[in-house]
């Protein structure tokens, strides 16, 4: 990127400044982290979080394919399954997932007219 001159600072001027600040402090924190008491990534429970994030990205793919109603139902099923605990949760998971998909479709797609993809598969089926 073009740094420009001090007389006429180019597009790369401030990014370079900020990046240098960031790099300096990162180094500082890194050194302190290596010398100080250890804290490991293991302390973080990350399984549910990973499933959650992954399911949202899959939702993005599914949305084009299967349309809003079905994809949202699947996504919310996964999310509620992560969030509800204990036995006998599945009926409730299915209920809340279906309710969210339906209400979401009514509110956002029908009332507020957000143009969600219709879904290629749905088009075939119709």
């Amino acid at each position: 990127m073009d740094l420009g001159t001090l007389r006429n600072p180019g597009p790369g001027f401030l990014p370079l400044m900020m990046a240098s600040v960031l790099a300096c402090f990162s180094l500082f924190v890194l050194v302190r982290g290596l010398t100080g008491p250890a804290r490991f990534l293991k302390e973080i429970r990350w399984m549910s979080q990973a499933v959650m994030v992954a399911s949202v990205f899959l939702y993005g793919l599914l949305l084009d394919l299967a349309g809003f109603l079905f994809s949202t139902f699947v996504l919310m099923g996964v999310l509620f399954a992560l969030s509800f605990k204990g036995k006998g949760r599945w009926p409730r998971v299915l209920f809340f997932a279906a309710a969210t998909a339906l209400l979401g479709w009514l509110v956002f797609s029908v009332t507020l007219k957000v143009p969600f993809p219709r879904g290629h598969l749905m088009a075939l089926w119709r």
Partner: protein
Amino acid sequence: MEFFGNILTGFQTTFQPINLFYCFVGCLIGTLIGVLPGIGPPGAVSILLPVTFKISPVSSIIFLSGIFYGAMYGGSTTSILVNVPGEAASVVTCLDGYQMARQGRAGPALGIAAFGSFIAGTFSVIALMFLSTPLSKFALAFGPPEYTALIILGITILTYLAQKSMVKALMMAAFGFLLAYIGIDMLTGKARYTFGFPGLMDGVGILPIAMGLFGVAEVLENIDFSGEVSALKTRLGNLFPNRQDWRATWKPITRGTFIGFIVGIIPGGSATLASFVSYATEKRCSKHPERFGHGAIEGVAAPESSNNAAFSGGLVPLFALGIPSSVPCALLFAAMMIHGVQPGPFLIPEHPDIFWGLVASMYLGNIMLLIINLPLIGMWVQVLRIPPRILLPLILFFCIVGAYAANNSFFDVGVMMLFGVLGFLMKRFDYEPAPLVLAFVLGPILENSMRQSLKLSGGNFGIFFSRPVSLTLLVMAGLILLSYFLFKKQRAVLDDKPPET
């Protein structure tokens, strides 16, 4: 007389039915967000911002502000009844509020929180009204070097006030600036940091970033939380504080209002910080400091007043200088930009309806909130019983739909999720999101004013030190940095932080 004309314009704007409606809905949603733990006002506002695209700028600013100060009212309810803060600015209210509720004085605790908020809200709007216009007239004389210095000072104070580590806060600020420079450079038209993604040509939006950091990150943080929210089963009884309560609290409310307003003006002086500072002040002023933490009514009144005043305080630099001082103001700033209103010293003269309409709507909103919160308190107690395991997936769903609907593309949803993960990790490793968001919003202003200044001076950095205003600002920034390294251990205010809840 000009003043009365202005305030009249303001009330005319506010009393238009559509604006009354948005003011009321904003306050209602704000209270709801405040009551519900799990999502704070910044997350809620960023989800709701796309909704305001189609309404007028005045209505949308009135609406979004209503959410912010409404949340300050609602947050106290959860703190008092559940001992869990409904949003960050009512963390301290838990200390004495919950104890009061356990002693059967939930009613007066809720009452004084609402009345304190009302008094602080009203008086701080009056202060906002009198302070903004002169300050913006003063700021009209500011050139690019002054703005550069002002932003540098702002970021310095902001990171100095960071709760955890100034170094980490500075890193977040630098990162925020870098994010702001993604996309096409305004002066030369060159693409920066786009890595070939066409979606990045326009830069990253504030919405996916804020939704990720304040919405998705909260959900990721709390999804493993298995506990139940258990509202204290108590008779609320009389909500009106008695004469003795008033005698004990009128001074704390006054001090809380004052402190909150001042802290709100300072960059980085969030409502949360204001509530901590005023709680600490009351503890020091009190003749019986040992009562604090055991149900002292002053310990509810002061922080609840000051967090309301802090919001109005934050509006002063936003409207007078165009510099947001806290995350809520940064989002209002973004909302104005989206509506094509340029915040800055020209805002009040050019769009008097926005500023005076907002001021008038805040008088009215505070009255509405008193009504929403006191007689209807029973309804909010019911809302409290909605378990987080139902709420969290729904919040994520709203974030996804919100991010999608803003541009009708899934690209923003992806960006939002990335920032959600980032925000989640940042929280775990004590990095704060506020410097990032503020730096992101201020990034373009800093870049333009700095490049313009250097062009003016022909590449001489002396331009920042030869003009009295910018020199003063920079010297202040330098002193703050110096004092951080000299007195690292003695940052008294933050030592009074209560244990994490």
